[in-house]
């Protein structure tokens, strides 16, 4: 048992030794080159437990404040770590190069020394403390206020801190209105909130009610810093936009110049002063969104998004409701998104979407989701398709447009329960044919109906010819009719014309023989012709015909005696000519005689 305690105590001692080795004692200044009259700070810090701090000789400098001792203690797993720092505010009194000597401290029985630090002092403004005290002697409150506000502007100010100053239109910017202070603030009040023209703004919501104080070093000076207002901005137009200043009123506790030695001795006097401050304006350069590659239907979304669409059911009955949900998730101007252009089947009854936002505004930007919930009611059975929804946004990080597409949905609609009833009951349920879009009428197909330019039918020669055809025919008909009437008015003439026609018909072959000068055949044909005519005329069969019958029949028709005799003579002549050549009479005379006879008979009967 005893051995164990020994080992433990040795180990513990080792640990103590090791710890002692780690102790460091350093000296630092916030600037190595200072102007005369300028306050600078020298800090000696040790990261362990130490005692007997001996400050160096600050020859050439005037100690304005200090030593300010700060101690911090941390306990990790039971190990206690301690650090001490001793700081002095110094003011150089002369121009030149000075050395701050080594300071010493005793830690764990060891004496530690700092390095010496060289400080270059240049000529500066007259020592402010002097001037202030001089002014104090002569001036009243007004002058003093003016003087101190100049001084205070370094002690207490507001700034608008933006995360970027060069953005695209619609890209989000985070703006922090910050108070920087080195003095105690007794009270504050916001006078004027910035108007932020040209921006759409959103206050950050995760901000706590009370301001969180942090320390921040600006130009080598340590400040207590608090965010007064944090806002996320979306530029609404391109160009150089200016952030308005934020105005605040503070009541600050400012160290007052000591009037007497006693005040100085007790750490100086303080004075509560009312100060009106404004943050300096900040200019933001806003670039317009690039035109190149801008997708069709782009609606101003900037950031990084994803899109998801869903339906609660894909098969249902007519007149039942269906929920179609589109969710846009991401970082960017989600609140500024316009309604998506969703193409639903024309036959669906569609209601305006219910828009639900789940958006958080944090220091690093606005993020969240917006969901569009469409209530749809199919009115008729069938298979319908909800077209894919296209959503485009501009990603400022990649400087590109991105188009996202959801998947299409096929909806099967079965016949509804009361669909037929509804239609039967009222005519009001009948719907007009929806005019979806207008377009030009389709091209003409089929024959091209080509014609050469300049040969239109109207006005062409053929046109006039055909047009005149009718009237010409009508006039022709009229002329013919007139002529016909005129000819038919004289009965005798008509009759004789007819008779001669008949004679010509019967004597045609005889005439032929006459031309051929075949005498025998001529008489033969003439005889046959007369016989044929009489047979037709008297209605006596050809076989029964002889001279006596003819004479008797003609007499019965009261034909002229001389004509009958003439006919008999001619027939005799023809009879005779068949057996012996006829002389003393020309064939032509006989032919003409026969023709006249036929005409005469025709006229008499």
């Amino acid at each position, binding site marked *: 048992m005893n051995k164990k305690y020994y080992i433990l105590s040795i180990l513990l001692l080792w640990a103590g030794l090791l710890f002692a080795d780690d102790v460091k004692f350093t000296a630092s200044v916030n600037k190595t080159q200072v102007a005369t009259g300028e306050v600078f700070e020298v800090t000696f810090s040790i990261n362990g437990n130490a005692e007997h701090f001996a400050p160096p000789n600050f020859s050439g400098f005037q100690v304005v404040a200090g030593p300010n001792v700060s101690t911090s203690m941390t306990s990790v797993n039971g190990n206690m770590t301690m650090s001490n720092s001793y700081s002095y505010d110094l003011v150089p009194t002369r121009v030149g190069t000075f050395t701050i000597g080594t300071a010493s401290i005793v830690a764990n029985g060891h004496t530690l020394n700092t390095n010496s630090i060289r400080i270059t002092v240049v000529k500066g403004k007259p020592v402010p403390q002097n001037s202030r005290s001089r002014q104090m002697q002569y001036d009243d409150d007004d002058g003093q206020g003016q003087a101190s506000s100049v001084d205070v502007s370094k002690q207490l100010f507001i700034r608008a801190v933006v995360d970027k100053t060069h953005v695209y239109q619609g890209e989000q910017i985070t703006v922090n209105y910050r108070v920087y202070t080195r003095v105690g603030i007794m009270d504050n009040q916001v006078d004027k909130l910035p108007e932020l023209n040209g921006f759409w703004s959103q206050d950050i919501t995760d901000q706590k009610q009370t301001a969180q104080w942090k320390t921040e070093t600006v130009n080598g000076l340590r400040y207590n810093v608090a965010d007064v207002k944090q806002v996320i901005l979306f530029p609404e137009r391109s160009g150089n936009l200016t952030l308005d200043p934020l105005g605040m009123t503070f009541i600050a506790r400012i160290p007052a110049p000591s009037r007497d030695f006693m005040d100085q001795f007790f750490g100086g006097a303080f004075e509560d002063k009312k100060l009106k401050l404004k943050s300096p304006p900040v200019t933001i350069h806003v670039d317009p969104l690039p035109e190149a590659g801008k997708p069709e239907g782009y609606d101003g979304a900037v950031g990084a998004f994803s899109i998801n669409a869903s339906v609660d059911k894909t098969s249902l009955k007519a007149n039942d409701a269906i929920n179609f949900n589109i969710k846009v998730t991401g970082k960017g101007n989600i609140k500024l998104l316009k309604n998506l252009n969703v193409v639903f089947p024309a036959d669906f009854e569609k209601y305006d979407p219910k828009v639900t936002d789940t958006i958080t505004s944090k220091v690093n930007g606005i993020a969240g989701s917006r969901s569009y919930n469409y209530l749809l009611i199919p009115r008729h059975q069938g298979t319908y398709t909800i077209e894919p929804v296209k959503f485009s946004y501009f990603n400022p990080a990649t400087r590109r447009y991105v188009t996202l597409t959801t998947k299409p949905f096929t909806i099967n609609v079965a016949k509804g329960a009361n669909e037929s009833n509804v239609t039967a009951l009222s005519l009001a349920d009948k719907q007009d044919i929806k005019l979806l879009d207008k377009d030009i009428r389709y*091209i003409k197909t089929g024959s091209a109906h080509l014609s050469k330019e300049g040969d239109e039918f109207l006005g062409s020669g053929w046109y006039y010819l055909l047009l005149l055809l009718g009237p010409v025919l009508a006039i022709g008909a009229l002329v013919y009719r007139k002529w016909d009437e005129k000819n038919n008015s004289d009965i005798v003439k008509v009759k004789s014309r007819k008779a001669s026609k008949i004679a010509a018909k019967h004597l045609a072959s005889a005439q032929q023989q006459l031309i051929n000068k075949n005498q025998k055949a001529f008489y033969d044909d003439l005889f046959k012709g007369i016989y044929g005519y009489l047979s037709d005329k008297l209605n006596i069969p050809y076989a029964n015909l002889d001279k006596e019958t003819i004479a008797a029949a003609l007499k019965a028709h009261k034909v002229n005696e001389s004509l009958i005799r003439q006919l008999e003579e001619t027939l005799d002549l023809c009879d005779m000519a068949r057996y012996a050549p006829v002389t003393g009479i020309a064939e032509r005379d006989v032919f003409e005689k026969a023709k006249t006879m036929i005409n005469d008979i025709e006229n008499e009967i």
Partner: protein
Amino acid sequence: MKYKHLIYLLIAFAMPMLAHAADNMQALFEKGNQQYAKGNYKEAIADYQQILKVGYQSVPVYFNMGNASFKNGDIPSAIYYYEKAHKLSPGDDDINFNIQFANLRTTDKIDVAPEFFLVKWWNSFILMFSATTLAVWSIVFILLASGALIMYIFTYSVTIKKASFYSTFILFIIGLFIIFMGNRQVNYFDTHHQAIIFSGAVTVKSSPADAAKSLFVIHEGTKVDVLENNSNWTKIRLPNGNEGWIVVGDAKEI
């Protein structure tokens, strides 16, 4: 003398080719239609253009050309060809619809000066049928009237004579009226010279000179009446009654 044979030979070859030309054109027309159906509007235009270049004219070709130009985004050409088709077949509903539709896409909105309603009616009446249709019908009616007249001349029956007399009278009147209509239509197109503005924006001047006062600006696709041509300048009138001069190249006469 040697060449004479060659010419005869060429003619002998060319004659059947000329007969085939119409068939070729019909094939071209169908090819253009197929290209149009596929959405290749530029190719379709090229095909139709080939038909027109040879000197043919046809309502379907003009109409399809207009459609292809419209789909191609060339509104002035579309209107130009629609108007050409309209001139050949003024009563075609498809053409009139597309003219109206294409006019919605032009820049200028011109309030048409109100016309006396009888004039409007009369114009739409004489433009109801194409010139060729009117020509054919006029011939048919005149022939029918002549037929009835011939019947009147030759018939002996009193009833037929009476009926044919009156029908001759009526048919003849109708025939003459149709001839008159055709004549008026030809006259209408002869006196109503119209043109389509093809340049993007045209400044209309008060007189035919560059230095003349600018009266107003019209844009492509607008239809104007051509009143007078003066070497390099054309006097135009807008449907709202405004008149002025433009450079010849800015507009294309229908």
